[in-house]
């Protein structure tokens, strides 16, 4: 019973974040400044997700150094992406680099 409340509540607030902005902003004409600002949302938010993921592998502790396989493999993935522009090759190379890095660290 409590779980029904939990799931329904989580579903409701998540939909309340996603949907209304999509529906309402589509109805009004945004000022050009806002339209231009929104162009920077994708690189800013994706870089934020990527960079925190490699620098905080456990979510809580900043981990700078060669013994951080997330960081090492992340840098390699970024270089591969820059050279190839291919998502699939980037993921493949990144995973290979990640497992190799962990293996070299003895993990």
């Amino acid at each position, binding site marked *: 019973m*409590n779980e029904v409340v939990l*799931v329904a509540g989580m579903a409701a607030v998540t939909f309340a974040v996603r949907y209304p902005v999509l529906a309402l902003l589509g109805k009004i004409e945004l000022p050009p400044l806002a339209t231009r600002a929104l162009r920077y949302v994708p*690189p800013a938010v994706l870089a934020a997700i990527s960079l925190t*993921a*490699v620098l905080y592998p456990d979510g809580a502790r900043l981990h700078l150094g060669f013994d951080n396989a997330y960081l090492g493999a992340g840098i390699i993935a970024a270089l591969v992406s820059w050279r190839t522009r291919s998502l699939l090759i980037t993921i493949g190379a990144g995973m290979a680099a*990640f497992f190799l890095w962990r293996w070299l660290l003895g993990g």
Partner: protein
Amino acid sequence: MPERSTRRAEFLAGFRDTLPLELGGIPFGIIFGAIAVNSGLSPAATMGMSLFVFAGSSQFIGAGLVGQGVAIPFIILTTFVVNLRHALYSATLSLHMRHLPQRWLVPLGFWLTDESFAIVIRRYTQPDDSPHKHWYFLGSALFMYVNWNVCTLIGLIAGQVIPNAQDWGFEFAMVATFIGLTVPMLKDRPMVIAALVGGVAAVLANGLPNKLGLMLGALVGVAAGMIAEAVFKPTPAVVVNEETST
């Protein structure tokens, strides 16, 4: 890309372009299913989260809080805050989805995730004027949704069998996915600066609770991009021209 101009072709292209993302999505979903049942959620509630909430990181946090015995209203509030960045995605996508009726906006809004946003905004910012780009969104989102739920199911069944699935390292696939989606977006200096400043700000703000650091990083990055744009490209007219030609 004229072959993308039909609805069916857009739908299939969205499906196909989402395939690489499932490399990260599959282990993510399986690990969620395994962790959720091990943290004390019933299998029904675990599936219910994937079916009705459909927001990966907040589901992980929600399951974790259930395991710690946190009160339900607080878990729901946390979910809201964790997912706040989706409002930024909605705002960005709304510019391209003005013409769509509610029967499209409601399901596509429900299916909006980090992954779908990253892949779909790439399609929307391509210069061709296909009127069916929402079919691309549908193909991508439906694939993510079905895959997420199937993998949750696999994870919750295998959860008792597979020990420590989260320590195997497959979650790096999702990190590599986000990197592979970010780097090709950095086409000019303002974009690079928005990404660098946004990334660094999010790292510095990582101590904030409930992933608010991501939200703050995004906003600071957007501001930095705007400032860089004013410095490097003084007139808005130039920006509009570049937008239509790249």
